[in-house]
């Protein structure tokens, strides 16, 4: 007697496919929305440069490092240790350190803390390549603390030597 194996019949979805796509899209959007409230902060380390304003106004030679921490939520303050790195004898060395500096956010820009007065004295006339690096924490208004770090990228030359005073 021949053996007959019953053919399996796959279960067909009872929900129309258009509705499935719609539900998936809705779920994606909801998850995106929740994910969007996750606090995130970024650090923008600008390349160290010779401060022409300090030279013109105060007759002082200095390399300036600007750093900004920006979050998607309000922050109390940012605490950073930063340094200006230089190339000397084909090696990267720390030319100047800024240790644990704090900058508060302002009422005008509660999500931003700006470090705009990090200066290193230098000797004009000697071209040296610099880059800036920084790492630290952002202290948010909600009590959370987020680690941040960044650098200014490749070394760029400035006609002033730090550490020659």
């Amino acid at each position: 007697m021949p053996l007959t194996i019953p053919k399996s019949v796959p279960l067909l979805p009872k929900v129309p496919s258009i509705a499935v796509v719609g539900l998936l899209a809705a779920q994606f959007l909801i998850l995106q929305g929740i994910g969007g409230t996750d606090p995130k902060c970024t650090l923008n380390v600008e390349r160290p440069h010779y401060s022409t304003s300090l030279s013109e106004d105060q007759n002082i030679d200095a390399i300036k490092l600007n750093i900004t921490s920006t979050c998607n939520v309000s922050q109390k303050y940012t605490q950073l240790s930063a340094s200006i790195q230089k190339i000397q004898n084909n090696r990267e060395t720390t030319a100047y350190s800024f240790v644990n500096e704090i900058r508060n956010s302002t009422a005008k820009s509660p999500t931003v803390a700006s470090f705009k007065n990090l200066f290193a004295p230098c000797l004009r006339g000697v071209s040296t390549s610099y880059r800036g690096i920084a790492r630290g924490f952002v202290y948010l208004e909600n009590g959370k603390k987020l680690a941040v770090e960044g650098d200014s990228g490749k070394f760029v030359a400035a006609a002033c030597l730090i550490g020659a005073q």
Partner: protein
Amino acid sequence: MSYFEECLTSGGLLFQEERRALYKYLLEINKDFYVDQANLLLDKGTTTRCIANGEATYFLKDRKVNYSARQLNSDEIQSELREIKLTRIRRYNIRKLEKFFAQCDVDVISNFPIPGRIPKEESGYGFNAYPFYTLAYYANGRNYLKGIVKKLRTKDNEILTKLRTL
């Protein structure tokens, strides 16, 4: 204009070395004033001090002292900026407070300098997390033995001499 007066105008443009020397200089010239201020704070629980273009108000609560600061003629107050814990020994507390006041004066000068020809860049209140009178400042909060060595090697005599010259 003396170098000290220049510092009161330069404020936030001062190098780290200059701020540290300024701290030492303020501690030196304001010794009697800081002692009086400390006694006032310990007796009354609050005291206010104006320097450069800023004002600092100190508060004592539960043997902890903190301060808030504002620019003169401004309503925007920066509160609870630094804090120190006091002991039960009054004389020791006065010594601690002298250093604390000098550090806070440097903070206020750096943030609220006397308006000059250099426009102030817009940024929030800024200061070094570790005060100049702590080993943590020299050790970057890590190895305190290295901090002692670094402190002994730190010479601010040149800037201090400039500051002392009237």
